[in-house]
């Protein structure tokens, strides 16, 4: 009898179940960049003048930098300001959401600034227009000459809030600035903001320089220089300008890179046609040999946890990429594709390795998982190499050279960036020709 009751109760349950909530799976969407309105920042009328800065235009200029940053990501579509429907000061208090929705914006950035007592105070708000609510709001105080960095920091905060990943706008890129004819190239170290402004030259161009790399705090740079025709790895303090040779090697050292904690430099040392990978501790100056093989081992790059090193070697005949523990044990080949692989660079996220590949006279920039699987070639060209990661592991910067005539005419080298999805390829603005870029980590961290 009890069973019968149970059966009936079960029956009712099943019948009710069949009237459950309607579920619809949404597996597709609009892949267009998110439309975002960036209102010019309102300049407080109480603002005082400050040497060398046009205060009245500051609000407009900051919003322009934010706009450029967002356009360069390929993920956002900053809307034209002519269509804006509300004055910056009123919009910053409380936007009329329905009016902004009319111009198809989904997010809105508003802000205001005040220059007083030689201090710049900037505040901004990010609004979700569909939900009619504020998503984030922050204020900064700094010296007025720092206004470009404020614009980049605001961009980072908005980017982080809208994408869930860290931004990469308040960063710098160090590169080799090139000028002159191809056979007499003058190469200097140069540093610029990620958007191409504030270029500064760190060396005079008397000697050839190559492969500059930042340390994790962005204050030191290691690079290779042909000073007095002795190709060596050098260390440069950006703020003081002091330089020194790294280690006391009886031969050529090259391809340097910092370890993730900044305490070591890993590099190649070549002697008698053989090159191996070495590390040097910057505090104790102790040099350690990591690989010992008769082949050419070079281009070492640490994993972000410091436990592994990726490098390229021709020990199997053709140049391929290998991964080993940071003490040199457990060497494992990870590339087996057709062609030559080089310049492996571990992503700051740790999940991918970027590389250059040469096959049938073409150069490719690509990424793969750290075990060598899932190889994806992002871009193909006549000559391109030296990928470097943005600090959030989303964008790669590299350089590309054009084909030139027998006398070197028509030759140029430019910096380019591309998304790890293979989309959004862009040329980076530089004052001169440029090669060997290296992206810093976030400056404001």
């Amino acid at each position: 009898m009890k069973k019968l009751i149970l059966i009936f109760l079960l029956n009712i349950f099943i019948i009710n179940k069949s009237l459950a909530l309607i579920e619809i799976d949404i597996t597709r969407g609009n892949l267009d960049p998110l439309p975002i309105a960036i209102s010019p920042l309102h300049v407080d009328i109480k603002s005082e003048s400050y040497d060398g800065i046009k205060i009245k235009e500051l609000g407009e200029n900051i919003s322009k930098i934010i706009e450029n940053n967002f356009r360069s990501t390929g993920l956002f579509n900053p809307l034209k300001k002519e269509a804006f429907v509300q004055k910056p000061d009123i919009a910053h208090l409380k936007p009329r959401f329905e009016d902004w929705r009319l111009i198809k914006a989904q997010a809105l950035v508003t802000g205001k600034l005040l220059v007083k007592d030689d201090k710049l105070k900037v505040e901004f708000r990010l609004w979700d227009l569909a939900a009619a609510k504020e998503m984030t709001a922050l204020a900064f105080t700094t010296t007025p000459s720092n206004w470009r960095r404020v614009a980049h920091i605001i961009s980072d905060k908005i980017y982080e809030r809208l994408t869930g990943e860290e931004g990469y706008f308040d960063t710098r890129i160090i590169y080799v600035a090139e000028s002159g004819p191809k056979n007499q190239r003058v190469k200097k170290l140069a540093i610029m903001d990620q958007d191409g402004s504030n270029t500064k030259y760190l060396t005079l161009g008397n000697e050839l320089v190559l492969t500059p790399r930042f340390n994790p705090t962005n204050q030191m740079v290691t690079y290779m220089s042909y000073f007095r025709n002795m190709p060596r790895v050098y260390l440069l303090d950006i703020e003081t300008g002091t330089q020194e040779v790294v280690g006391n090697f009886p031969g050529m050292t090259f391809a340097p890179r910092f370890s993730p904690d900044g305490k070591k430099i890993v590099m190649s040392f070549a002697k008698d046609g053989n090159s191996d990978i070495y590390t040097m501790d910057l505090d104790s100056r102790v040099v350690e040999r990591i690989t010992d093989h008769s082949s050419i081992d070079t281009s070492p790059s640490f994993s972000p946890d410091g436990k592994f090193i990726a490098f390229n070697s021709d020990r199997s005949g053709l140049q391929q990429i290998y991964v080993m523990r940071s003490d040199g044990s457990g060497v494992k080949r990870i590339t087996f594709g057709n062609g030559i692989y080089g310049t492996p660079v571990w992503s700051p996220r740790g999940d991918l390795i970027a590389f250059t590949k040469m096959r049938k006279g073409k150069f490719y920039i690509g990424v793969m998982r750290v075990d060598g699987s899932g190889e994806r070639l992002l871009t193909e060209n006549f000559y391109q190499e030296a990928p470097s990661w943005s600090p959030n592991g989303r964008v790669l910067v590299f350089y590309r050279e054009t084909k030139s005539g027998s006398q070197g005419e028509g030759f140029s080298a430019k910096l380019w960036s591309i998304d790890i999805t293979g989309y959004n390829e862009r040329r980076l603005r530089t004052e001169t020709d440029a090669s060997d870029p290296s992206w810093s980590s976030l400056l404001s961290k």
Partner: protein
Amino acid sequence: MIRSLIYSITFHSILVLLTILSLPFMLREPIDLPPIVSVELIQISDKTSIPYAPKARKIIEETKKKEERLVSEQAPPAAKAKEKPDRIPLPNEKKEEKQIIKKKQNPEEIKPQIRQASEFEKKEIVDTNQIAALIDKAKEEEAVKQKKSDKVTQSSKKNSFATGLTLSQEDALRAQIFGCWSVPLGLPYDEDLLVRIKLKLKKDGTILKSEILDHQRMNKPGQKFYKVLAESALRAVRLCQPLKVPPTGYDKWKELQLNFNPTEMLKG
């Protein structure tokens, strides 16, 4: 003896009670089912996953030509002009329209049976081909909108019989939300990112209440991507208002659950 009688009476009365309670539920489904099936048979040929149907295009062009001719001869009534091209008029509405037209065109009363139908009225007569064409046209527009990613998963076509929406009704809703949803492109593809939103709807398809089912996950540390996705899904729903809900069966769809899952798209 008496004890067993009491048992018998109690259990029988429970049985009767349960039957009374459960029967209405059981009855409801079969009554609703036949029309659902019949509509579906028309729709399957015009599935949204096909970007456009050449046959339907011909029909659409023909109807367009007809419309152009009509405009040159006589202006259609205002009510007609406002009507959306992708909406199928309800039987009631059609009748009303007919009457209005009749008054305008024929000031002298002619008996309906012998009256010759004017060209305009001919168009109003229900023609399944044309309805199919109109639906097709709407789907074409949607298909064009989403030409970038043209995958419909099999899994997304589940249990429409059980839920009470026809495939085409579900497709219309889905296609509408596809268009409104700006997928956050920076999301990692290898994480479990599924956002479930429960909606309470008004009869006109506007949203009474929207609720994220795992909303406690939104504010947990390390769940930034989930939060971004959830917010984008909420934006999509709000921007899509009013939703393209079926004209009937409000009880069935007054509460909906939308499962936003970008994994497939981000992988591709």
